[in-house]
């Protein structure tokens, strides 16, 4: 065959009996996604007669395709995917459509007809549950800007460290959004030092250390990044380089590492972190999928789990779990 | 007729001048023997002819035209074939492919003609009378040293050559194979090829060569026609002095039995028993594949013994690994120095002190000064030709490498010394030195077992000769009874009915 069989879009026929869902996650060994997987499985248990299989895709788009195919071969009724890269979206959509399996994206958005969700017509977007990368970045940038203002630093002797894995597009989105939000909130432009990392704390730490060496004249630092790993590593580096906690304005993303600093009760440059609850997202995704399959309830175009900016004063009340 | 000329060849390596302005012709239809002490530059000259080394000065001229030799491929194209001193075997392919390496027969396109190749190699083997010692389908990694050398020799036949150079082709061959090889060389000579032949075995040279060229210290001493010279003159040219009393050994055996091998059976050796007394030299003779090396490997714990026992000084030794044998007081110089004994990229010092480190150490730290002293002592005693003891072993000539192996075990001063082909590739002068050393050791009460394929050596050295064939001991000869004929008879006991020497006709 030529592979071009017509791919009619989802027909919603109700499923009775057992529902099996494949939850395909990028970076499945990261803490956030581990939480998400647990949330999904807990929800499945709660709903009953639902089976969730979690698969780690790493950063591999090709694996995303084969695991989707494998899920279909296993007669899975629904696929929830956190794509390693939104560009693989159309391929996933077409693969799933050919088999008439329901599809929901989680965390990152995908488009049915193009590789870039941000340029996608609204009706071509696959239903999604999660957080908006841009929105998260905006919140982080805003809080950082507020802290900057509150500290009363001057733009001239301040610089921003933006640490992220530069070939992960969803990371880039967050960091870019943070910058414009910061400029809005702070009312001024501050120089950005971009630090390319592999999204792990040790790498963020050593790369930031080096970047700091190249910018010794800076007195105050604002820090953000793609996730808590980056921010925590960078803040650690600054503290090791002799900067006082008061001269660091770090805003994390995830809060699962920031909370460790806060838990120790010491002064830290980690001023706040956006708490995103993977557990809730996982549960919500499964719920949405099951509602659709069981009751034919259309999946909402976008469903956002709540995010909350937390800091040393309120993180415990907000439900941040710290290992 | 072909003529190969080396004109004004010079070659130096860091610290050593290997060849100095050597001009020499190798006429077609004649066998030119190249002789000289270890490190005289014979292999270097041959490697230059082969395009393997580039000379610092001079030229190689074939039939009047100078050759541009940048790689062995160029020499090959010009019709020069070299059988190197160390056989180079490809381990995971068959003997047949090893023989025709680089010139595999092809069918249409680039398809490789496996059946044709096998037929050709079988035919070659039959023609040379090697079919009983070499199977074309065996893998290279499973060959014994002798078989490896035969493969190298067979390679000489694969191309239409004008010049063939053999660098010590017989160093691990025994009489049968040597005969066949000589038949081959005579045939090549009749075809008008120029044959270059390097060997340290004096009798061989006088049997096969037409002319003898002698190198010393990288320079050409002279060229003699075989008919108009004798061994004494050649030796004088080689070493610059007369050598006498080569094989003069006095009986020094005592009654104290040191090594007892009792009904040992391994995978290739059946029910072998022998004893060696303190101060005695026992030679183990036999043809290629007789199982002598196998037996030695078993005695030193490197190959599993299926039944039987080995005792040293009356005490049974539990042989699980060579370490047990070393601990029990045995020393073993294996036959293949490069593969089995030497750390090619380490210094002479490292190589010699390897087995005495446990005596040289204090709190596990090696006493360096003592180590250097000991190494120097043995380098001097064995006359190892090296610029200094930190020189890498791979840069030494073949014979000097062999001396390093011997030095290692002499330094350990074992009760039992097992030497497998100890003079392989060693020049006459050094050979005499080694015989003296063996004699000295025996006198000092060491029990020595020598495995050798060179009959004069066996006869000269041994108090007793044990002959093996096909994994069994076929006889034992006392010094007084031992003659070449007697040994060969025992070595071929089972073969006598069948004729072996078709190739020598």
């Amino acid at each position: 065959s030529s592979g071009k069989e017509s791919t009619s879009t989802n027909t919603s026929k109700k499923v009775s009996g057992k529902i099996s869902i494949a939850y395909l996650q990028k970076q499945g060994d990261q803490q956030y996604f581990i939480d998400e997987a647990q949330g999904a499985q807990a929800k499945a248990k709660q709903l009953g007669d639902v089976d969730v299989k979690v698969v780690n895709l790493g950063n591999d788009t090709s694996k995303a395709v084969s695991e989707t195919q494998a899920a279909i071969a296993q007669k899975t009724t629904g696929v929830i995917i956190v794509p390693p890269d939104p560009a693989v979206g159309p391929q996933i959509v077409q693969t799933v459509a050919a088999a008439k399996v329901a599809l929901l994206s989680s965390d990152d958005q995908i488009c049915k007809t193009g590789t870039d969700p941000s340029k996608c017509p609204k009706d071509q977007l696959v239903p999604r549950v999660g957080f908006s990368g841009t929105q998260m970045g905006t919140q982080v940038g805003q809080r950082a800007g507020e802290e900057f203002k509150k500290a009363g630093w001057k733009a001239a002797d301040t610089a921003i460290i933006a640490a992220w894995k530069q070939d992960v597009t969803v990371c880039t989105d967050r960091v870019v959004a943070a910058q414009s939000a910061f400029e809005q909130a702070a009312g001024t432009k501050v120089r950005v030092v971009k630090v390319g990392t592999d999204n792990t704390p040790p790498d963020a730490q050593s790369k930031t250390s080096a970047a700091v060496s190249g910018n010794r004249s800076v007195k105050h630092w604002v820090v953000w990044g793609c996730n808590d790993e980056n921010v925590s590593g960078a803040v650690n580096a600054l503290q090791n380089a002799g900067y006082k906690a008061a001269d660091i304005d770090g805003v994390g993303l995830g809060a699962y590492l920031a909370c460790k600093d806060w838990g120790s009760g010491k002064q830290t440059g980690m001023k706040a972190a956006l708490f995103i609850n993977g557990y809730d997202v996982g549960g919500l995704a499964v719920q949405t999928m099951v509602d659709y399959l069981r009751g034919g309830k259309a999946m909402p175009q976008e469903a956002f789990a709540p995010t909350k900016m937390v800091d040393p004063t309120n993180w415990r009340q907000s439900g941040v779990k710290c290992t | 007729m072909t003529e190969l000329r080396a004109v004004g060849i010079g070659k130096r390596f860091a610290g050593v001048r290997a060849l100095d302005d050597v001009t020499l012709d190798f006429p077609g239809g004649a066998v030119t023997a190249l002789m000289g002490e270890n490190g005289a530059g014979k292999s270097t000259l041959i490697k230059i002819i082969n395009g393997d080394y580039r000379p610092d000065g001079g030229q190689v001229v074939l039939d009047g035209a100078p050759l541009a030799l940048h790689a062995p491929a160029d020499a090959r194209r010009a019709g020069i074939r070299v059988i190197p001193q160390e056989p180079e075997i490809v381990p995971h392919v068959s003997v047949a492919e090893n023989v025709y390496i680089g010139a595999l027969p092809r069918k249409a396109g680039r398809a490789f003609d496996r059946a044709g190749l096998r037929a050709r190699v079988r035919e070659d083997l039959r023609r040379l009378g090697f079919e009983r010692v070499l199977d074309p389908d065996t893998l290279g990694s499973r060959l014994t040293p002798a078989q490896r050398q035969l493969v190298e020799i067979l390679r000489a036949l694969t191309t239409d050559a004008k010049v063939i150079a053999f660098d010590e082709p017989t160093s691990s061959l025994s009489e049968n194979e040597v005969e066949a090889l000589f038949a081959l060389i005579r045939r090549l000579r009749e075809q008008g090829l120029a044959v270059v032949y390097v060997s340290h075995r004096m009798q061989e040279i006088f049997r096969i060569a037409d002319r003898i060229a002698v190198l010393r210290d990288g320079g050409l001493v002279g060229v003699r026609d075989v008919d108009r010279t004798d061994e004494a003159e050649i030796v004088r040219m080689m070493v610059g002095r007369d050598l006498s009393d080569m094989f003069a050994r006095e009986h020094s055996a005592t009654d104290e039995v040191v090594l007892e091998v009792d009904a040992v059976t391994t995978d290739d050796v059946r029910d072998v028993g022998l004893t060696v007394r303190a101060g005695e030299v026992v030679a183990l003779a036999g043809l290629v594949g007789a199982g002598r090396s196998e037996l030695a490997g078993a005695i030193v714990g490197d190959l599993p013994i299926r039944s039987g026992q080995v005792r040293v000084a009356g005490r049974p030794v539990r042989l699980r690994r060579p370490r047990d044998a070393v601990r029990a007081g045995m020393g073993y110089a294996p036959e293949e120095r490069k593969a089995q004994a030497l750390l090619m990229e380490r210094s002479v010092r490292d190589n010699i002190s390897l087995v005495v480190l446990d005596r040289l150490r204090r709190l596990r730290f090696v006493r360096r000064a003592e180590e250097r002293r000991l190494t120097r002592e043995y380098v001097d005693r064995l006359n190892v030709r090296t610029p200094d003891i930190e020189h890498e072993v791979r840069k030494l000539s073949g014979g000097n490498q062999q001396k390093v192996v011997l030095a290692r075990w002499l330094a350990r001063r074992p009760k039992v010394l097992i030497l497998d082909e100890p003079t392989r590739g060693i020049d006459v002068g050094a050979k005499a030195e080694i015989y003296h050393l063996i004699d000295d050791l025996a006198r000092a009460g060491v029990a020595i077992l020598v495995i050798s394929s060179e009959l004069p050596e066996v006869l000269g050295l041994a108090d007793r000769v044990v002959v093996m064939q096909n994994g069994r001991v076929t006889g034992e000869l006392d010094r007084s009874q031992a003659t070449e004929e007697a040994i060969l008879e025992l070595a071929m006991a089972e073969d006598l009915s069948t004729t072996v020497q078709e190739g020598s006709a």
Partner: protein
Amino acid sequence: MTRTTTSREPVDAEPKEGVPRRILTAIGPQNISLVAALIVVVAIFTFLNSGYLTWSNVQVIGEAATVAGLLAVVQTVVIICGAMDISVGSQAGVASVISAMAFMSTGHDPFLGIAAAIGVGIVAGLLNGLVIVYGRVNPVIATLATLAAYKGVAQLISGGRAQGFVLGDDLFIFIARGRIAGLPVQVCILLVVALAIHLMLKYTDVGRNIYAIGGNDTAARLAGININKYLIAVYALAGIIAALAGIILTARTGSGQPTSGSEGLELQSITAAALGGAALKGGKGGVAGTLLAVLLLGALNNGLNVVGVNTFWQNVAQGALLVIAVIIQQRRTGERAVGLPT
């Protein structure tokens, strides 16, 4: 580099030749145990989940293994030479990006996209070979360096983002989802490449010379084989096949991927080649064994997901099963346990 071939391996008796023995030798004892391991793996997963041994799942296994399989096959050739190519994954990444970008910029011409990718693959491979042979850089170091460099190149030309969109094109769709006689096109490509390389290795003098070079390069050199030419050509071949893998990657994911999808492929390809019997010192190995190893690893991977084993256990299970498979394989040869195994 002169290799000393150890003369007397402490090996036990030469196997006796009989008819069943002959068949065994034809498949090769190494491969037999891979087949056995494969059977065991399939049996276990089929028992645990009936959806495992279905034709559709077998196709999925095949398709998932194609990219790694192509690289493993060509890695086998490189390893037989006694070298290694760690940059194959990055080369595939560059080719993937180039194929998509060339496709887009030539007004959606798939052939030009593919040709451009292959051209780039040849250049990358040649560069590896030249650096190694004439720069005298150890193959591992050299290709580790180009692993980083080519990855950087892929990221630079793509800005780190997936490029283009090829799933509007019939040829790419055909590669991604087509079937030939019921077999996925990707798998067909893998089989064709594997067969071609197998034939080259076993039945042409080129292949035999490659074994000779890897087995003993001094012997090969003295025999007049132009080692340098062979090595550079083999690296160029690796570049071509890596480019092919990159093109398949583009078709599978729908766009040119600079890094995603091609990271970690170097270790996978080396693992498969080594598990399939290629000796890392060179001179030994074959396409059949490598393909079996690819299949075994693919079946294992897929099975663990089908059965729903958690990622962390998957790592443990994969490692443990790999070791057990090799131990069983080695035990059968009855080699004595002294020193490093080959």
